[in-house]
C-alpha cells in the first residue's frame, strides 16, 4: 500500500488516543509502515482532540495533509466538522450522532449547530455515514467503547485496510483484560449497525 490516512477525532477523555493506538498497532502487526500522531498535555483536558493513523510506504510524518484523509472517524459531530478539511473527496466520514456540548454553548456564548447543518456541511467534502454509536456503546458496557463501535463500523463498511482479527488481537494486547469482552462486543455492534448515508 502506498498511503492510507485515518483521522480520528473526538473530545479529551473519550478514549480517542487508545482507539487510534489499536488501529496503529494492528497495522504494524500486519507488517505495514505506520505513523501515529497524538497530542498530550494541556490539549488533552476535555478539549477537542485528534489523532492520526497513517499507513503505507509513502508515509513519513504524523500529520495528514489537507484533503488527504481516506477516513475521518469522529465520536462527536462538531469535532468531525472541525477537522473536515483533511478528508479527500473520495474518502468517507463516519460520525457518531451523540453530541457533547462544549461549555461555551452551555454558557450561551456559542450555538451548537443543528444535526442538519452539520451533516450538510460534512457532505460538501465527502460521503457521510452516521449512526447512533453512543447507544450501541452503552449497550456494550459504557460510553467509552464508542470509539470501538466506530472502528467496527469501518470494518462493517469494508473500508479498513486491516483485518478484523488483527484489530481484535490489538484490542486484547492494548486494553486491560476486563475491557476485552465489552470492546469486542462494541466492535461487532458497530460492524452490524444500521447506518445512514448522506451525500451532497
Amino acid at each position, binding site marked *: 500500500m502506498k498511503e492510507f490516512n485515518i483521522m480520528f477525532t473526538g*473530545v*479529551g*477523555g473519550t478514549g480517542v488516543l487508545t482507539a487510534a*493506538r489499536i488501529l*496503529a*498497532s494492528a497495522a*504494524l502487526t500486519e507488517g505495514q*509502515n*505506520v*505513523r*501515529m*500522531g*497524538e*497530542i*498530550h*498535555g*494541556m*490539549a*488533552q*483536558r*476535555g*478539549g*477537542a482532540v485528534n489523532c492520526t493513523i497513517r499507513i503505507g510506504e*509513502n*508515509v*513519513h*510524518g*504524523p*500529520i*495528514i*495533509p*489537507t*484533503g*488527504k484523509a481516506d477516513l475521518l472517524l469522529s465520536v462527536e459531530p*462538531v*469535532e468531525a*466538522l*472541525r477537522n*473536515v*478539511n483533511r478528508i479527500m473527496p473520495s474518502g468517507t466520514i463516519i460520525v457518531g450522532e451523540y453530541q457533547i*456540548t*462544549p*461549555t*461555551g*454553548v*452551555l*454558557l450561551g*456564548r*456559542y*450555538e*451548537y*449547530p443543528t444535526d442538519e*447543518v*452539520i451533516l450538510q*456541511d*460534512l457532505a*460538501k*467534502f465527502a460521503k457521510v455515514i452516521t449512526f447512533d454509536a453512543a447507544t450501541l456503546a452503552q449497550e456494550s458496557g*459504557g*460510553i467509552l467503547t464508542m470509539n470501538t463501535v466506530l472502528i467496527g463500523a469501518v470494518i462493517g463498511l469494508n473500508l479498513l485496510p486491516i483485518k478484523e482479527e488483527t484489530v481484535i488481537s490489538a484490542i486484547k494486547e492494548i486494553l486491560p483484560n476486563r475491557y476485552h469482552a465489552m470492546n469486542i462486543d462494541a466492535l461487532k455492534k458497530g460492524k452490524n449497525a444500521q447506518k445512514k448515508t448522506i451525500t451532497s
Partner: protein
Amino acid sequence: MNMAEILTKGAAGKRFLLLGNEAIARGAIEAGLELAATYPGTPSSEIGDSLFRAVKHGNYFFEYCTNEKVAMEVAGAAAVANARSLVIMKHVGLNVASDAFMTLNYIGVRAGLVIVSADDPGCWSSQNEQDNRLYAMLGDTTMLEPADPQEAKDMTIAAFELSEKLEQPVLLRVTTRVSHTRSGVELGSIRPPRNNPNFERDPFRFVTVPTVARKRHPILVEKVKKATEISEKSEWNRIIGKGNIGILTSGVSFNYVMEAIDSLQLKAAIFKVGMTYPLPKKQIQKFLASKDKVIVIEELKPYLENHARAFAQEKGIMTPILGKSQGYFSEIGEFTPRTVIEGISKALGKEIPTSYAEIDNKFSESVSEAPPRPPILCAGCPHRATFYEVATATGRKGVYPTDIGCYTLAIQPPLEMADLLLCMGSSIGTSCGLTAVLDKPIVGAIGDSTFFHSGIPGLVNAVYNQHPVKIIVVDNQTTAMTGHQPHPGTGMTGMGVQGAQISIEAVAKGVGVEYVKVINPLKVKESIRAIREAVAYDGPAVIVSRSPCALVEGARKRRANEPIIPYEVDPQTCQGCRVCTDKLGCAAAIWTGEHAAIDADLCTGCGVCFQICPFKAIREVVTNERV
C-alpha cells in the same frame, strides 16, 4: 509485553509500536543508562514516565527532581562521577536549567551525559515556542536532532557515545511531533551498565573559579573543532536523492520534505542534517556549491538558513538560498506537509498540486459553525471549586496571577480567574510586583508541584520584602497536567519508594509566613470564609487548598471498588437560575430544556454544585450507584 518489559527486556531485532519518547527511554537503556533525572513537562514527560514505570526491571537510578536546574545538576554530577546519565526536560525547562547547563559545558563530563530538550513548535502545551537549537550555539554543545521514533532511539545511543568521545554533554533536541509520534521501532541490544562510578578529583577542571573558567573556555572551543570534524563525517548528516535543486532540512521537517517532493514530483537532493551543532560546514558548502538553488526547510528560527548563508559567504558561493528570509516559510508555529508543499512551490515558482484554496473556502464556512472546545478543568476538579471560592470571596475585585499547571485552565469561562502568567513559579514573584504598585487584593494561584519547583524563592521574597500577597497553593497532590507524576509533597520517589513527604504549610511557615491555613476546597462555605480572612490579613498569607486530583481520585476509587455516587437535579425544584453553570461551569453540567442536569457518567460526586445551588435542587443519586 507491557511497556516496562518492552523497554527493559524487549529482544534486539524485534519491532514495537513506540512513542518517540518511549523510544528515547529504550535508547538510553540500550546505551547502558546508569542515572536519569527529570522534571516533567509536555512534550518530554513520557521519557521520564517510561523510565519510572520500568525502574524496577532496570539497572538504573531514576528521579523526579524538584526542577530542571536540579535535574541538570544531579545528572551532570553523576556523569562527572563516571555514570552514564540522562537529563530530560521540555524546552522552557532548559531556561530554568540554563545556569547549570552553561557551565557544565565548560567542565565537561567523564561518562556520557545526554540532555534531552523537547521543544514545542505550535505551543501545543507551552507558554512559548522558543527554538532551543540556539542553546547549542550558546553553550557550544554538540546537538543531535532525530526526525522520527526510530532515529530518536538510535540517536540517544549515538549521543551517549559522542558525549564520551568528546567528554562533553550532548543535547538531543526533539520536537512535539517526534516525541508524540508512534511508529514501528526496531530494538537493539541492551548494553549492561558499566557500574564503575568513580569521582576522580580534578578541582582545576571541575571547580569553576575564574582562573579555571578562563582555562576551560579555550578547551571548549577546541572541543567544538573536534566535534565539527566528527560532524563532517557523521552518518547522521546525509544526502538523499539527486538533482540540481537542493533542500537543506533537519528534524521532523525532513518527513514533510519527503512527502512534499513526492506530491510535487520534484527531483531534488535532500541534505538531512542530523548532527545540527556543530554543523558539517564543509559538507554544506560543497552541497551549496553543487546546486542551482537550495531551499532550507526548518521549523521556527532560520537556524540552518543563517548558518548556510554564512558558510556560503565564506567561500563566495553564490547559489541562491531560499527560506524564511524571502518569506517562503514562516518562523511561527509548526510545519505540516501542506506548508512545506506550499513553501517549496512558492520558492520554485511551481503550481501547488492540490487546490487548497477550494478546500479552504468550503472549510472556513463549515468550521465557523463549530463552537470552540478549548481544554477545560475536568468534572469534579477541585481547582474549579477553589477558583469559584476565590472569585466569591474577593468579589472579583482583585488581580489573580496564575501559574503553570491544570489550574491555568481557570482562564476559561465561566471562572475567568487568570490574569498574569510568565513561567513556572512566576505567580508569587508577579504577585509581589503587583502588591508593590497596586492597592487591591492580589491573589496568586500556584500548584503543589510548581510551588516546590520554583515558588519557594518567590515566597521568601514576599516575606523578606513585606509584600502582603495572598497565595493559594492549589494542592491536588500530584503533577496533574503532565501525567500525574509524584513530587516532594507526595513523597513517592522516582525509584517507586515512599519517602519523606514535604509539607507545603510547614515550608510556608518555615520561611516566615505567619498566616498559613489549609482548606478543603470541596467545603465551599468554610473555604470562602478562610479566603476572606486571608485577604483581610495585613501581611503575606498562604492558603493551601488541598483535595486530590479528580482523575487520580476516580481511578483510586475504581481500583478499590469504592462507589462513586453522582448527583442529580430535581427538575421540580430547579428554577433554571443557572448559578451552577454560569458561576461554576462543571464539565458534568448539562441542560435539558429549562433545567440544569448532571451527566452521571462524568459526575464525580464532589458535591460542590450541591452546596452552591440556591434552590437546593441538587441531590445525591440514591438508586443508581455506580462503581
